Each structure stands twice: as C-alpha cells, then as structure tokens.
C-alpha cells in the first residue's frame, strides 16, 4: 500500500524530531549501522543492512535499538573439524 503524503511527512517528522532530541545526525546512524552490520555479518547471514535507531530517554540516557533480519546462523568451524596438525617426527 502506498502511504499518503501526510503519512510520509509524519514519519519523516517523527524521525527528524527524535534525531534532534538524540543529538545525532543521519550520518552517525548510517556509520553505526554499517559497523554493526559488519559484526553481525560474521555471525549471521544478514538479509539486509541492520536498522539502527538512537533515541534519548527522559533521563537523558541514549537508547540504541538495532533491528536486523537474517536468513541463517553462520556455521563456525570447530577445532574438531580442522585438519589435525602434522607433527614432525
């Protein structure tokens, strides 16, 4: 369903006001999302780039919410699966 301009504007304003209150710019969220995505990408098969939301609570503390979708957990190679070391005689 296509959102109406008023709804799009409301969503945009909501994000803008939260960003203003949190005191972080759009570039900050993008950089954080990229870094978090790289770390999570080592553990999960990410479907898309994680969404990072930074808000500021009433007490002034930052609340960081990361939402990421993954299709699978990456399989780690355990030490048992590794070829046994060749011990020189």
């Amino acid at each position, binding site marked *: 369903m296509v959102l109406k301009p008023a709804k799009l504007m409301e969503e*945009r*304003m909501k994000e803008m006001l939260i960003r203003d209150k949190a005191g972080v710019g759009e570039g900050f969220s993008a950089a954080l999302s990229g870094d978090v995505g790289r770390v999570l990408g080592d553990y999960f098969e990410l479907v898309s780039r994680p969404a990072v939301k930074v808000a500021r609570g009433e007490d002034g503390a930052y609340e960081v919410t990361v939402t990421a979708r993954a299709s699978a957990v990456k399989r780690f190679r355990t030490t048992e699966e590794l070829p046994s070391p060749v011990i020189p005689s």
Partner: protein
Amino acid sequence: MRKIVVTSGKGGVGKTTVTASLGRKLADMGYRVVLADADVGLNNLDVVTGADSRVVYDIGDVAAGRCRIFQALVADNESTARILPSAGGGEEMSAQAFRGVIDSLTDCDFVFIDCPAGIENGFHRAVSAATEAIVVTTPSASAIRDADKVLTLLSAYRLEDISLVVNRIRPDMTARGEMMRADDIARLLGTPAVGVIPEDDCVTLYQQLGRVPDFALSEKAFALLAKNIADRTKKCAEIRMPLRRRRRWF
C-alpha cells in the same frame, strides 16, 4: 491577569496575526486585553492592527521611564483591545525591565506578548514576562521542527501552561491525506492543540483594510480558539469547510 506569550521559533508562521486576532476576539467577549509587541527590532503588531500611525511612545520609552504605561497604550480601532507597541527603540532592554513593564499592566485580564522569531535574547525577554505560552506552527516540516525546539526551551521556564495553535491548515488537503492533520502535529509535538486556523485569503485581503469579517473561516476558528483560551479548555476544534452545493440541471 493572564500573561500569554505567542511564540514559534520560525518566522512567518502567523504569530502576529494570531496575537491580534485572538486578542480582538477576547476583547469582543468582554475581556480587557492588551497586545504587547516584544518584537523590538522588527515590530509589526502595530502594522497588523492598523495602529502604526497613532504610536507616540513605545515599550522602550516606558522601560526607560520617559512616559507612563497608559501613555504608551494605543487603542485598537477594531476592538476594545489596547496595543503596547515597540517602535524599534529598546533593543538593549533587559528581560527584567520588560517584565516590569508587563507586570505594571494591572487593569487588564489578558496580556498577549508577540514574541520575535528565533530563540535569542528577544525570545528570552518575551518568555520571561509570561506565565503561559502559545506555540504557533504551520504544517510545514521546518515550522514543526522549530516548534519542537521552542517547546524544549519553554520547558525550562516556569510556565503554567503551554498550548499549540496550528495555523494555515488546508482542510481540503488534510481530507485528501496530502497535508498533516492538526491532531497529528499536536501528537508529534506532545502538546495539546487549542486552535486550528485554516488558510484563508480573507486574512490577506482584509488585514490591509482593517479587520477580517466574522464570516471568514479563520475568524470562526479564532472564535473557537478564544473560547478555549478563556475557559482554559484544550479542545482541538477544527472548522469544517462548507460543503459545495452540487449543481443539477433540474
């Protein structure tokens, strides 16, 4: 006496129009109203009310002791409200001096302080003298953002009440979902909207001639706003556009 500052942050959203129209409506209701211009550098309240040619003393003269407060008050031709103009003098006036002038207005029920745009000294001076605030915004992104910043600043002052007025709403566009509704803006800003003023050509047309007539949609909205302010109610009453009559052959 209720001292209400009309502020916005962003310029051009209709602070002076709201101050003048709301003050006149309350004066029509029988209240004693003074409209004080705190926009010292770019004073416009006297122009909007048509009192500019009758200004002798201004708020700066009162603060400097060059005249008494009643000598500076100018009668409004269109209502029983009185105007306390600022004629460009007194830019260096302190917040305490301004507050002293406003507090000396004892024989009135409402004092509306027209705040300058921005959040600098003029803003502080105007807000310090008030006990209540009305934040004016329009449905544009920049006005909403500035209103949010102003609301954050206002929370630092000891104000009894803060309300929102959404100006220049286009009911046809909000009905089609092309413009944000006033209640959505109020929810976004976390402040109750006590007035929703529709965009009205009558304001542009009649403001130059004197007073906007009562049949204008904006005047009806100002009447609802005045009632809300007088009764201290927080009803977000929107004026409905009159339905177009369908033309038929028979």
